[in-house]
């Protein structure tokens, strides 16, 4: 098997595994009170974070809510390591995360 094929197989097997993440339905309207802490970076077009590496913070509008909630939960748990995101995510409740994910996924242009 080529490495690519092996990886594809691994990906398929993992994809078939049950997903345990509980995704409470978020309320985008509730998020309006909470986005202040996001806007400082994600609310500036093309904003580049400077520490620890320099790169543009990602676009969030229209992104999948499940992906966004998983990202915030991973930062909160310390599995994803950006220092600012870690600090901010640690301050969020499950409900905050669901609301913010719903807000950005809804994506008003």
């Amino acid at each position, binding site marked *: 098997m080529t490495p690519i094929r092996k990886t594809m197989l691994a990906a398929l097997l993992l994809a078939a595994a049950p997903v345990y993440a509980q995704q409470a339905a978020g309320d985008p309207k509730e998020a309006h009170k909470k986005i202040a802490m996001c806007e400082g970076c994600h609310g500036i077009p093309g904003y580049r974070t400077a520490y620890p590496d320099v790169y543009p913070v990602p*676009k969030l509008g229209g992104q*999948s809510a499940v992906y966004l909630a998983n990202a915030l939960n991973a930062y909160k748990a310390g599995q994803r390591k950006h220092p600012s995101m870690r600090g901010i995510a640690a301050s969020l409740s499950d409900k905050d995360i669901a609301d913010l994910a719903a807000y950005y996924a809804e*994506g008003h242009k």
Partner: protein
Amino acid sequence: MRTLLIAMAALALCGNASAGGNAANGKAISEKVCAACHGLDGAKPVAPENPILAGQYNDYIVKALSDYKSGKRSNPVMKAFAEQLKKKDIEDLAAWFSAQQSNLHFQR
């Protein structure tokens, strides 16, 4: 006229200041490696766990793939794929995906 000016300004702003990635090469790699999960042009992933890539910032995609490759960002599936990519492959993929259209957009 005003709309045209705004459109031009917007295009100038989001111009993909790619680090020299070759989008055509990126497309070819993406069809073999990425499309099965993220969709053909990264716009319609097959599962909500997989992010939309089409229209994401070029350098952010480079950063994400580089971190998966190095293990700085851990995801078993993405690590396995990213490990097979050379630096140039990553730049090519970023050039391709960042130039595609999707629902993904800058959101205040």
